[in-house]
């Protein structure tokens, strides 16, 4: 097997300082994501999905445990190293799109490349290339306020992909999209995953979106609860996911 792109080992996250009201949001979480894998994270609201993503994405600090991304232990890094690491190795698609409204679509997408110091000559082809893949080349000179929610989502995706990061982290990217747009975004992600071999970690509530993944981790109350692999068609995987979610519902009722 190839080397894991993400290696999470006994990860804990406690919110709140000592002597205060503490909340144990992640409890001893361990898992790997192989290079080129497309993994989904599911679970009920408040389960700790966003927390997990924030810690992995280096935006938040873990309380204990280690995280290695592409062979680098990020739990030991300084703030500026983390920033560099984010800009080089990771691509984000946030729950809210987080585009900079004072930049055009083009400039938004180009920003990670500019930050990396890519020369102007190479920026335009790369930007146009992702824009084309995501079908946003027509709105490239517009400002975020003048484009639709789905288009914004795709711009955010384009920005996450343009510098070809080792891993893409996405938090409910389809949350604000209609089923058609959701489908097209998921297909883009699959395309990236298959053609460019980009590893993807995706948090979602939507079983249909989740069915595009190769593997799904379920978490509940901050703990890994179940893991399922896709061995069959997408449709039957979809059904499988629905079954697990139903299981959740009944177990919650029993409490």
């Amino acid at each position: 097997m190839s080397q894991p792109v993400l290696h999470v080992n006994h990860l804990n996250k406690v919110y709140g300082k000592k002597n205060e009201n503490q909340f144990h949001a992640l409890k001893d979480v361990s898992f790997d994501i192989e290079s080129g894998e497309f993994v989904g994270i599911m679970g009920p609201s408040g389960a700790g999905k966003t927390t997990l993503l924030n810690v992995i994405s280096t935006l938040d600090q873990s309380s204990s445990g280690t995280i290695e991304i592409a062979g680098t232990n990020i739990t030991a890094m300084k703030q500026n190293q983390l920033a560099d690491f984010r800009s080089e190795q990771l691509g984000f698609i946030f729950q809210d799109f987080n585009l900079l409204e004072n930049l055009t679509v083009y400039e938004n997408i180009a920003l990670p490349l500019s930050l990396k110091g890519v020369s102007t000559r190479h920026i335009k082809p790369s930007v146009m290339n992702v824009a084309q893949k995501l079908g946003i080349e027509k709105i490239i000179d517009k400002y975020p306020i003048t484009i639709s929610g789905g288009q914004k989502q795709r711009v955010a995706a384009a920005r996450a992909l343009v510098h070809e990061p080792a891993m893409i982290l996405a938090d409910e990217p389809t949350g604000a999209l209609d089923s058609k747009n959701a489908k097209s975004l998921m297909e883009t992600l699959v395309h990236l995953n298959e053609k460019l071999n980009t590893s993807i970690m995706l948090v979602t509530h939507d079983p249909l979106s989740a069915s595009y993944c190769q593997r799904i981790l379920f978490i509940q109350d901050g703990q890994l609860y179940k893991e399922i692999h896709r061995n069959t068609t997408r449709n039957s995987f979809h059904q499988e996911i629905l079954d697990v979610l139903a299981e959740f519902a009944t177990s919650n009722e029993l409490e």
Partner: protein
Amino acid sequence: MLVKLTLSSMRKMFKDYLVLLFGLTISIAIFYMFQTLAQNKAFVEANSLISSIMFVFHVGSFILGFITIFYIFYATSFIQTLRQKEMGMYMTLGAKKGKITQLMFFETFFIGIISLVVGIIVGVGLSIGISDLLMQQLDFSVEGFKAVYTSSILTTVIFYIILFLLTSIVNAWQIGRRSVLHLLHAGQKQDFVKVSGVKTFFGVLFAIILIGIGYFAMIEIEKLQQLGVILASVTIIPGTYLVFISFLPYFLKKLKQNRQLNEKGINSFTLGQLRFRMLNLTKVLGTVAMLIALGLGAMTAGISFYHNIEIQSSMFHANDVAIHQPTEQDLEALKSMDVTEQHTYTYKVTDDGIYFLKNKLIEDPPLVQAYNAQFELPKKQRVEDKLPASSYSLQEDAGSEELPENWWSAISTEINASYNMFGSTSVYVVDQAKYDEIDANDNEVILARVEDFKADIPQIEKIDKGQAQIAEKYRGEPVENTGSKFTNYVALKSLASGTIFMGIFLGIAFLMMMASVLMFKLLSSAGADIHRYSMLRKIGVRKSLLKKSIYRELFLLFLFPALVGLVHVIVGMQMFSFIIIEPYTKIWIPISIFFVIYGLYYLITVHLYKRIVLPKEK
């Protein structure tokens, strides 16, 4: 119900409202400070060297009023920025448009009234503080200045109430006119300024023409008089705003279009920040440029008048002090001064005349001021004329030759052997033979030049008192003015002190307002900037790079108006060239002081802004 909601959300946004109150308060305080001078006619006319000073103040009121209107409209529109999202929300929940409009009107007006009360109190405080400080520091006693001046309070109140009524109406109208959606998404909306090359070209051309006319009017102020002042203000102000309105958007667009520049590092974001609120930005920069021009101008003029005292008091005298019949104390005082040139001459005094010994004069001739009809500082020159005759006289006298002009001014002005010293007794210059014939005691007079006249003033004052006593002895009457350089200096200083006071007082006021406008611009937009910076940090921008972006953005913000303002000031000093001998003397002092303070202010602002917008982390 809606009113209650509004009040509670106002409480939540307390910080933002504080920023707004601060901006408005300073503007009101400054307006009031200006009015304490502009309305105090008795004081102004009694203390000014400028003949049509009241007229200048009328124009000044107009200019300040104009700038203030611009600024207040800009500042109160901040309320809209704060509130529109919430108002939009109320409207989606079913609040009536009329109600929202009403709410906006009263809110704006209410805030206006609060700031009016606070502003006048602050204005009175500042007037007292600054006037006391100036009088102490400059050793002036400016009589008749009143920090609490009723009619100025009244003018300020009326002006601002009208202004706030207007802005309230505009605010209400604008909120009422917008669609709910527009309100909800207001925060992300870009102020678009359409720029086309042709429009920019004509805009800039027009601005240059306007400013050119204004400069011409200032340079030719002596001929144009009051018309020149009016002409300069109605051309330069709109010209300045137009420069920013037409040129800046174009300039930034060009910068953005330069791929190499825009796509390097974080540049695209820095430029995007500047472009994002272009319309507001041009207003702010225009206002700041005008305030710098006025403030720095008033200050520089004031300080120029101050230096002018010394220059003008050297108009007539090439030497700094003449000591007749020096006493022990005089000699001691002289020793303690930094003397660069010293001459001693002898003379005898009888009832018929004062007789100077020619040889001593010719052997060691003094410097005099060359005669010159222009209003500029005359050149010093050493007296070289020969004196072949045996006897010369200052006054017309049948028995003696008339003294050549330079010797005349050496004796009567430099040595001060004139009516001031000896009354109507005639003054002669005679050769040794004649001198010896005169039956009287030898007297000495010392003529000295010092390195720094102002530094030696205490000693020179003592000497001058002694000279006045000698003059009293000869003239037989009380003498106040010995006609020396020192007495000229004192007279000029008391004449100019009022003007200097006004210049510096207003200079400080305008510059304070400038600082508050810049600060307001920054603080009012900081709230909206926070999430942009945190976003950048999330996608992996180093903090140092974010800081660099802030430094650059604010640098451009500070730079443009300072440059424009500085050019205005430098040309504007021409206005004083017919009343100040060398208006540009030491002009670098106030200008460099200004730039040092401005630079510090820049650093402080950057620091503050960084603290607000940059994400906190360990």
